[in-house]
C-alpha cells in the first residue's frame, strides 16, 4: 500500500471532489431514465379556502402535455407520516403555494406551458397570516421542536427581576428565513414490477423511503430512495418533501419515470423555513454582572396543518448560571406555509436574542461583554442540574479575544470613525447540543485486502463520505484510500438524517463499531475467504440518553464598518472559535464552520422575508429579493477550534459542527453595529433602511 494511515483529524480531501469540480457528480434530476416525463406543480393562489374546480382542458390541449393530476384523479394516499405530504387528496387550501395540480408533460417547456394553462377556481375565506405577540390564537404547546418542554421555570423570576439592581427588558423581532439550498428540491421517480425507485434531493433517504412506503401503502422493501449527491439542504431536505410524493404519484399514473424539480420561487411555500419569532428577554443582575434572573419568552407561528414550534428559548436553559429562570414558548396556527428546520432551529434565533440582551446588560453595567459572560459560567447545566460532559465556552472566549485582539477596543460606542465609516466590534457566544440518532452499518473485508463500509449516510456537502472513510480506516488500521464508502441509498443499512449536527456521531459510531468488530474477526486469523468477511453493528449505545449535559460551544467576534451616509453595514472581519469535541477532518470542518458563519452573516445583514398581509404570503420568493450573502460580502472570515478530550460522547470523541457556526453570529454582528453607531436595532436583518434614520 503506497498510502500511509492517517490519524483522525487529518485534512483529507473530499472523496467526491473530482466529480464535483468536473461536473460529473449527479444530482436528483440528472438521471435520465428512458421515456421520462417532467412534472410541474400548480400552486394555490389563495391563502385559505378550498378548490371548487380545476379546469384542465386548456392544459391538456398544450402539445406535449400527458396528463394533469388534481385532487379528483390523483392516486389516493394512506395518511402520510407528515401532513405536508397529503397533496392532491382533497380540496383544502391551507396556505398560498400549496399544490393544487400537477402537470405532466414530455418536456420542461410543455410542462410549464401546461401549468400556466390550468384554471383553478377557489372558494376563499379570509386569511390570517400575521404573527403578533398577543394574537388571540396563541397557545402554549406541550413541546417545542426537538421534544423540549415548552415551559421551564426555576425559582421566582418576577420577584428576582423586581429586586435586581440592574435589569434589561428587550424584545427582539425576527421575520421568516429561508434555507434556499442551491439545488432546488427535486425527485426522479419510477415504478418497475411494483417497486418504487426515487432519486431524491434529501438529507436522509431512509426517512424518505419510510414516508413513501407509508403514503403508498408499500412494504419498505418495495421502495428504494437514492440521494447520492445533494446540493445542500440546511434542514429543508431533512424531511420528505411533496415533490417526492408527487413524482411517485405521476409515475404510477403514467407508467413512466417522472422528474420534478421545484422552481426556486415555489420553495418558500413548500420546503419549510425558519418561522418568525418575537422574543422578550429579561435579565436581572447584580452590579458585578452576576445574573440573578433570566427570562426568555418566545412567540412564534405554525401552519394550520402541522405544529412546528421554533425552540428559541431552549439555549437559555444551557448558557448562563442564574438562580431564577423562566423559558417559555407560545405558538399560533396561521394560514401560512408550514415552518420546519433551518440550520440550528431554536439556537440560531434564540441566541440572537439572548446574546444581544447580554450585550445590552454589559453596556448597562459598563462591564466588558467577554468578561460578563465569563462571570456567569455555570458549574452544571442550569436547567437540568446535570454535569457538562465538557464545556468549552470560557476557553473559546479567551482564545477568540486573544486572536481577535478584542481588548484593544474602546468600549464607548460611536468612538471610532474613518471618514464616512463608523467602526465597531462585537462578540457573542454560541452553543449547539450533541445529538445522536439510531443508525446501523456494515464493514466488509475483501480477499484483496480492501474494505467496504456501508451505511445510509447522506453527504449534503458536509464531507460525510470522507469522514466515514476516515473513521473506518482508523478502526481498521488501514489507509483511508483502502476503504470504499457506500452511502446515499436506502437499501444500505439504515442511517439517520443529516441534520441536527448529528450525522458524524450517529453514522460514525455505527461505522466504528462495525469496523472494529471486523478488525477483531480478522485478527482471529484464518485469512479472508473468497466471499470476504462482513461485520455489522449499530449505535444503540451512543444513541441512548446520557447522564451528562452535552453541548458544543463557541465564541464569535466581529468588526463592522457602518456607512454614515447610506446606513450600509460592511463586515470587516469575523472570527469564530469553537469547542466541539475532537475535530475529525480539519479541512472539511473549517469549511463547515465558515459556511455556518456566512449564513449567520446573511441572517444579520441581508436575509429577510416579509409577510404580505394582503396576499397572505412571503413576499421574497426568489434570489433577487431574498438576499443570501455573496462573495463580496465575505472578506476576512476565520474559524478556529479548541480540541476537547471528552469521553462521554462517542468512540471518535466528536460533537457536531454543522450548525454551531450560525449560532450567535447575528448577535455578534448586531452588537458590533451597536458599538459602531450607538444604535440597537433589535430586529434583523440590519439593512440600510433600518439603520439610516438613527445615523
Amino acid at each position: 500500500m503506497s498510502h500511509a494511515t492517517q490519524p483522525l483529524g487529518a485534512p483529507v480531501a473530499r472523496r467526491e471532489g473530482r466529480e464535483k469540480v468536473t461536473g460529473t457528480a449527479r444530482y436528483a434530476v440528472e438521471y435520465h431514465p428512458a421515456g421520462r416525463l417532467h412534472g410541474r406543480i400548480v400552486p394555490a393562489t389563495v391563502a385559505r379556502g378550498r378548490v371548487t374546480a380545476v379546469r384542465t382542458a386548456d392544459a391538456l390541449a398544450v402539445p406535449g402535455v400527458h396528463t394533469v393530476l388534481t385532487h379528483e384523479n390523483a392516486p389516493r394516499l394512506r395518511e402520510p407520516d407528515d401532513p405536508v405530504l397529503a397533496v392532491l387528496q382533497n380540496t383544502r387550501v391551507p396556505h398560498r403555494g400549496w399544490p393544487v395540480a400537477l402537470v405532466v408533460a414530455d418536456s420542461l417547456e410543455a410542462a410549464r406551458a401546461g401549468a400556466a394553462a390550468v384554471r383553478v377556481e377557489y372558494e376563499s375565506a379570509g386569511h390570517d397570516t400575521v404573527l403578533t405577540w398577543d394574537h388571540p390564537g396563541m397557545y402554549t404547546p406541550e413541546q417545542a421542536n426537538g421534544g423540549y418542554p415548552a415551559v421551564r421555570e426555576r425559582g421566582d423570576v418576577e420577584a428576582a427581576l423586581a429586586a435586581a439592581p440592574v435589569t434589561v427588558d428587550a424584545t427582539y423581532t425576527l421575520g421568516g428565513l429561508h434555507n434556499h439550498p442551491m439545488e432546488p428540491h427535486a425527485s426522479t421517480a419510477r415504478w418497475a414490477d411494483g417497486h418504487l425507485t426515487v432519486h431524491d434531493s434529501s438529507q436522509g433517504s431512509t426517512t424518505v423511503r419510510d414516508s413513501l412506503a407509508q403514503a403508498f401503502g408499500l412494504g419498505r422493501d418495495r421502495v428504494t430512495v437514492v440521494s447520492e449527491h445533494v446540493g445542500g439542504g440546511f434542514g429543508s431536505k431533512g424531511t420528505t418533501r411533496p415533490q417526492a410524493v408527487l413524482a411517485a404519484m405521476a409515475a404510477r399514473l403514467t407508467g413512466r419515470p417522472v422528474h420534478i424539480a421545484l422552481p426556486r420561487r415555489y420553495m418558500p411555500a413548500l420546503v419549510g423555513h425558519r418561522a418568525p419569532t418575537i422574543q422578550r428577554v429579561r435579565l436581572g443582575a447584580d452590579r458585578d454582572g452576576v445574573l440573578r434572573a433570566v427570562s426568555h419568552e418566545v412567540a412564534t407561528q405554525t401552519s394550520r396543518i402541522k405544529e412546528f414550534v421554533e425552540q428559541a428559548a431552549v439555549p437559555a436553559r444551557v448558557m448562563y448560571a442564574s438562580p431564577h429562570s423562566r423559558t417559555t414558548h407560545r405558538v399560533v396556527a396561521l394560514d401560512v406555509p408550514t415552518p420546519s428546520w433551518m440550520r440550528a432551529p431554536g439556537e440560531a434565533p434564540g441566541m440572537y436574542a439572548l446574546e444581544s440582551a447580554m450585550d445590552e446588560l454589559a453596556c448597562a453595567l459598563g462591564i466588558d461583554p467577554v468578561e460578563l459572560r465569563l462571570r456567569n459560567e455555570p458549574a452544571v447545566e442550569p436547567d437540568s442540574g446535570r454535569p457538562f460532559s465538557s464545556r468549552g465556552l470560557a476557553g473559546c472566549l479567551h482564545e477568540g479575544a486573544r486572536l481577535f485582539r478584542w481588548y484593544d477596543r474602546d468600549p464607548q460606542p460611536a468612538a471610532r470613525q474613518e471618514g464616512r465609516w463608523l467602526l465597531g466590534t462585537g462578540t457573542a457566544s454560541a452553543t449547539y447540543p450533541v445529538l445522536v440518532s439510531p443508525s446501523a452499518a456494515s464493514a466488509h473485508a475483501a480477499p484483496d485486502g480492501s474494505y467496504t463500509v456501508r451505511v445510509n449516510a447522506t453527504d449534503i456537502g458536509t464531507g460525510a463520505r470522507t469522514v466515514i472513510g476516515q473513521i473506518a480506516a482508523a478502526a481498521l488500521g488501514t489507509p483511508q484510500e483502502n476503504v470504499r464508502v457506500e452511502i446515499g441509498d436506502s437499501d444500505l443499512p439504515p442511517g439517520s438524517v443529516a441534520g441536527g449536527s448529528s450525522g458524524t456521531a450517529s453514522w460514525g459510531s455505527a461505522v466504528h463499531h462495525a469496523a472494529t468488530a471486523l478488525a477483531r474477526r480478522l485478527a482471529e486469523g484464518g485469512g479472508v475467504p473468497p466471499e470476504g468477511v462482513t461485520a455489522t453493528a449499530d449505535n444503540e449505545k451512543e444513541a441512548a440518553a446520557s447522564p451528562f449535559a452535552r453541548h458544543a460551544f463557541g465564541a464569535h467576534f466581529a468588526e463592522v464598518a457602518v456607512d454614515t451616509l447610506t446606513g450600509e453595514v460592511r463586515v470587516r472581519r469575523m472570527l469564530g472559535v469553537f469547542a466541539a469535541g475532537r475535530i475529525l477532518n480539519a479541512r472539511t470542518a473549517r469549511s463547515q464552520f465558515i459556511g455556518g458563519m456566512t449564513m449567520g452573516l446573511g441572517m444579520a445583514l441581508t436575509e429577510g422575508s416579509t409577510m404580505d398581509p394582503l396576499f397572505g404570503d412571503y413576499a421574497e420568493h426568489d434570489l433577487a429579493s431574498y438576499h443570501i450573502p455573496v462573495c463580496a460580502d465575505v472578506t476576512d472570515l476565520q474559524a478556529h477550534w479548541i480540541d476537547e478530550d471528552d469521553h462521554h460522547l462517542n468512540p471518535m470523541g466528536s460533537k457536531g459542527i454543522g450548525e454551531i457556526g450560525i449560532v450567535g453570529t447575528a448577535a455578534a454582528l448586531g452588537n458590533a453595529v451597536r458599538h459602531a453607531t450607538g444604535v440597537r436595532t433589535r430586529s434583523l436583518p440590519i439593512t440600510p433602511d433600518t439603520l439610516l434614520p438613527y445615523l
Partner: protein
Amino acid sequence: MDTIAWTDDTDAAQPPPFGDHSTLTLHVNGSDRKLTLDHRTTLLDALREHLGLTGAKKGCDHGQCGACTVLVDGRRANSCLLLAVAQDGRRVTTIEGLADGDRPHPLQEAFLERDAFQCGYCTPGQICSALGMLGEAEDGFPSYVTAPDTAAADGPVPLDAEEIRERMSGNLCRCGAYPRIVEAIEDVTP
C-alpha cells in the same frame, strides 16, 4: 452501487420539426452538436436535457444565482437566460469541456486543493465563471472596484482578492465557500 440500471435516452431521436421548433448547431466543448429544439428551450435545458451535459446546474432559472454559468464564444453567460435557438453556430464551453483529457483544468485543481466547495451544486458555475472572469480581466474589463486609473490603462486589470470577490459575486454559494473560492482563483491568477 449498481442497484439501479438507468438507461440514458440522451441520444434518442429528436422530436420532429414543427413551426415552433428549429434545427441548429452548437459547438459544444469542441464538438458540433446538431439539435432540433423547441424555441422555448434555454441553452441550459438544451445542455442538460438534450445533450446529457448536466454539469451546468439549474439553481434559479432566472439568472439570479449563476449556477448555470457556461462560456459562450469565450465569455461567461447565464445559460438559463439564453434561448438555445438564438445560439446557433456559437461555441459553448461547459464544465465538462475544461479538462485536458484526464488532466483537470488548473482552476478545477485549485478548487479541489482549497476545498472551495461543499455540496458542489454551484461549483461548475463558479469554475466557469472564474475562467470567464480571468479572460475579462486579461482583456482590461474594469469592475465596480477597479480604480479609474487602472481601467484607463490599455491592458490587463490586476486581480487582487477584492477584485475577485466583486467579479465573482454573481455566483451564489449557500454553503459559504467564498473565502476558499477566492483563494483558489488567486492560485491561478497570473
